[in-house]
């Protein structure tokens, strides 16, 4: 069977297909950003938009709930369904499919925390009052003007999530960004979810693939309670420790890159590819350090801290001992000490 299309319709179809294919990721992101902004009224726009060099807004992120560390911008709970859809469309345009899925799982976990602890945050909510947990309490803001050429930034985050994505032409710079999970293992619609499953499982696989002498080098003989370069620690490069990747074999190095990709791959695919190429070039000077248990309960998360550090990279995975099982509460950090908030291209 053949379908005959009028000439003008066929031309239009081919043209729109080719223009969609020709549209770069940045063009799609800018278009999504403008679509989102067009759904807002004047007051909402004023609250969502900040100057690109607004240093206060830039660093207004945390692992803590919003009632403990206030965020600015627009929260999901105050948006209409159409505005919310446009906001998520923008976030998904900036992220990879896998990255967006991770964000949704982190938010689903927080919603579960709200359900378990009751609205208003329940006990432990602090005197700051107000709700602490839930999907409504994630904020979106834009620093600068969405552009295919000029620098601008999208911020999206709340409890256990802080995405700071600087769009610099075709580059998408995702540092510094924080991911986390509490509960870090949960069941939703009969399906078990671990938002940071790959970060846990791949790191353990790498550790298990190390030789005994390599493990000795990788293991830090001291306890690490929390992130060293978490919120508020911008611009610092600490002395690397552990096992250097130049002392790993090819298989181990590939596994290390695979762990790194769990963070570098949160951003959309083309930006992730650029970033991974940069990190691969640095691999010989990249370190892997481990502190804590070397075994994991099946189906659960690591309770060990680990850090991956290179000339343009700091990754930290830090299970939290806060009145419960550390495997159920994880903080993780992703930085480029030379280019957090896209400062490097900004200075060019």
């Amino acid at each position, binding site marked *: 069977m053949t379908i005959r299309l009028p000439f003008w319709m066929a031309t239009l179809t081919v043209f729109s297909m080719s223009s969609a294919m020709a549209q770069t990721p940045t063009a799609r992101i800018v278009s999504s950003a403008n679509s989102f902004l067009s759904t807002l009224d004047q007051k909402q726009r004023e609250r969502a938009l900040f100057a690109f060099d607004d240093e206060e807004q830039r660093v207004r992120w945390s692992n803590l709930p919003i009632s403990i560390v206030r965020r600015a911008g627009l929260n999901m709970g105050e948006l209409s369904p159409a505005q919310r859809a446009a906001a998520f469309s923008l976030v998904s345009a900036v992220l990879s499919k896998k990255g967006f899925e991770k964000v949704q799982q982190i938010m689903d976990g927080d919603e579960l925390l709200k359900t378990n602890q009751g609205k208003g945050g329940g006990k432990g909510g*602090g*005197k700051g009052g107000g709700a602490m947990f839930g999907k409504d309490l994630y904020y979106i803001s834009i620093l600068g003007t969405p552009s295919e050429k000029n620098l601008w930034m999208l911020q999206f985050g709340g409890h256990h999530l802080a995405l700071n994505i600087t769009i610099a032409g075709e580059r998408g710079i995702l540092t510094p960004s924080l991911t986390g999970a509490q*509960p870090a293992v949960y069941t939703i619609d009969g399906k078990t979810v671990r938002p940071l499953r790959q970060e846990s499982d791949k790191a353990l696989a790498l550790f298990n693939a190390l030789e005994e002498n390599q493990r000795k080098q990788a293991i830090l003989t001291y306890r690490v309670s929390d992130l060293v370069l978490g919120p508020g620690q911008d611009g610092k490069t600490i002395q690397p420790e552990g096992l250097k990747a130049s002392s790993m074999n090819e298989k181990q190095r590939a596994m290390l890159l695979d762990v790194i990709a769990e963070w570098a791959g949160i951003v959309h695919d083309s930006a992730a590819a650029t970033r991974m190429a940069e990190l691969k070039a640095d691999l010989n000077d990249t370190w892997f350090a481990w502190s804590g248990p070397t075994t994991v309960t099946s189906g659960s998360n690591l309770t060990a801290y680990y850090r991956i550090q290179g000339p343009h990279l700091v990754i930290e995975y830090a299970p939290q001992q806060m*009145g419960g099982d550390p495997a159920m509460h994880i903080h993780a950090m992703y930085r480029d000490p030379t280019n957090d908030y896209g400062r490097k291209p900004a200075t060019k």
Partner: protein
Amino acid sequence: MIARLIAAILILAGTPAFAHRLDEYLQGTIISIEKGRLQAQMTLTPGVAVSPLLIASIDTDSNGVISQTEQLEYARSVLQDLSLTIDGRHLTPQLVSEQFPTLDELKDGRGEIQLEFKADLPGGGRNRKLTLENHHQSAIAAYQVNCTVPRDPNIRIARQNRNYSQSSYVLEYVQTNAESASVEMSPVAVLMFLSLAVLWLRHVWPTNVMRRFAHWRRN
């Protein structure tokens, strides 16, 4: 006593999952080494269950406000609980700045105290050894210590050692442009050295030269 108080607070809080630090006092220190100087930033985060203990030691007049004087007193007490040495010589940390949250923030476990301190490093050899021991609130502390990559290309970190709790930290580094101790002499010592040199030149050196000259003539 401390353990009982914490346990009681935890029972009152009564929920297994918390969003913030509970029964520990996180004390993170990041040290930077420069030529002749050490700088450090301390971030102190008391958990919600231990904050009453901390508040009692900060708000000493219990008026519900942390005054400037109380901030300074507490900051100094933290520094007094540190033991800092370089090559076995005791160093005195000097407070550079302090930043305190409100009492309410501390009570809620959302308060971070930021302290900055510095210490002058006397001259020494090429291989240097810095030690830091933190004894502040050791019963409830969770310590973390790190050093930054030195900006000075003449300083290279050789080794870091810590005990399990990170209360004890040893940093070994190499300083390739190390100055000799004489350069570090005080002006008084320099004057004394110069005076002795002049005396030697005027009395000892000419005598020796004359003796050698006479010896040469005899032969």
